[in-house]
């Protein structure tokens, strides 16, 4: 069934590449946000500062995943 379908499936291997590319940022975001929540739970009084720092970190991690996205379009 899958083999039969494989004949008809057309597309770009870049799609798979993007899937691979988001694994790293995915893990990164998980650790980053999880640790921030941990920190907030331990010390709710610095929650605001932690949140800002988390968003700065998210900005850096997220751009990796997005680079994967645009690479798919650039090198078709």
């Amino acid at each position: 069934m899958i083999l039969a379908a494989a004949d008809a499936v057309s597309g770009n291997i870049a799609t798979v590449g993007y899937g691979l590319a988001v694994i790293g940022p995915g893990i990164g975001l998980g650790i980053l946000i999880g640790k921030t929540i941990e920190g907030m739970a331990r010390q709710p009084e610095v929650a605001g500062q932690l949140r800002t720092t988390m968003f700065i970190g998210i900005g850096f991690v997220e751009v990796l995943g997005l680079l994967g996205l645009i690479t798919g379009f650039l090198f078709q």
Partner: protein
Amino acid sequence: MPTGVACADARPPTPDPRSCDLSSTATAALTLAAEEGEGFHAPTLADFFPGPIFGDGTLVEFNRIMLVRVIAAVLLVAVMAFAASRARLVPGRGQNVVEVLLDFVRVNVAEEILGRKEAARFVPLLTAIFFAILAFNITGVIPGLNIAGTSVIGLPIVFAVIMYVVYLRAGIQRQGLGGFLRTNLFPAGVPAPMYVLLTPIEFLTVFVLRPATLAIRLVANMIAGHLMLVLCFAATNYFILEAAPALKAFGAVTFVAGLAITLFEVFIAALQAYIFVVLSAVYINLSIETEH
């Protein structure tokens, strides 16, 4: 020929389904499943380059995205001017909303990152950038406009270049050119041989990666959001109008998913505006602080 509900712009039909790489497997699966009708048209990058409205081929070629940008800019200025002209000591409801947003940029972004003393210089710029990006992003989910003004790289580059000039200028003003380069390219407290590795990386970070990632982050988020929306609503259109009866129920699923993504996009629009100004403030701070 089915076109996406969310994408009212006239886009050329893609002759080769292989060119739409992002969702090609989804397309293939759907065409396999239906095996009839005109098929499902996945969104492509062509969505972001609609035909010109006037000035075809000239320097002032004006297309739909330009029109959306002009509308967003005019609306933003009108709302702000209206709120400012009727400003009272005791704010009304509309003024309150604007003031909360203005205060958010001043307190939660500028003053928290730069400190109260340094922030004063940069608050007007950061506020203007925040509101501009928010306005241009939010057009992506407004019915009728349906595309973010920032979803083509030109506008994000303009914002990034402005911030690039501002943070370099702030750093050089504060420390002089030599001092600025020394604190940024040769961070203190590192053994001297490490500078062989560290200095090129720091150079790339300060002069290339920071502005480049500011622009790319914004544009890629908006492109991804638009593609997700179009994918959902185009799939809804296809499932309900063309697909085999057994598949019509999936139309409801993709429609609800499209609505959910619309709400998500509102969140993303605000988040990206926030992240842009936060990172800009961080870069300014990194430029002007002399020692860690």
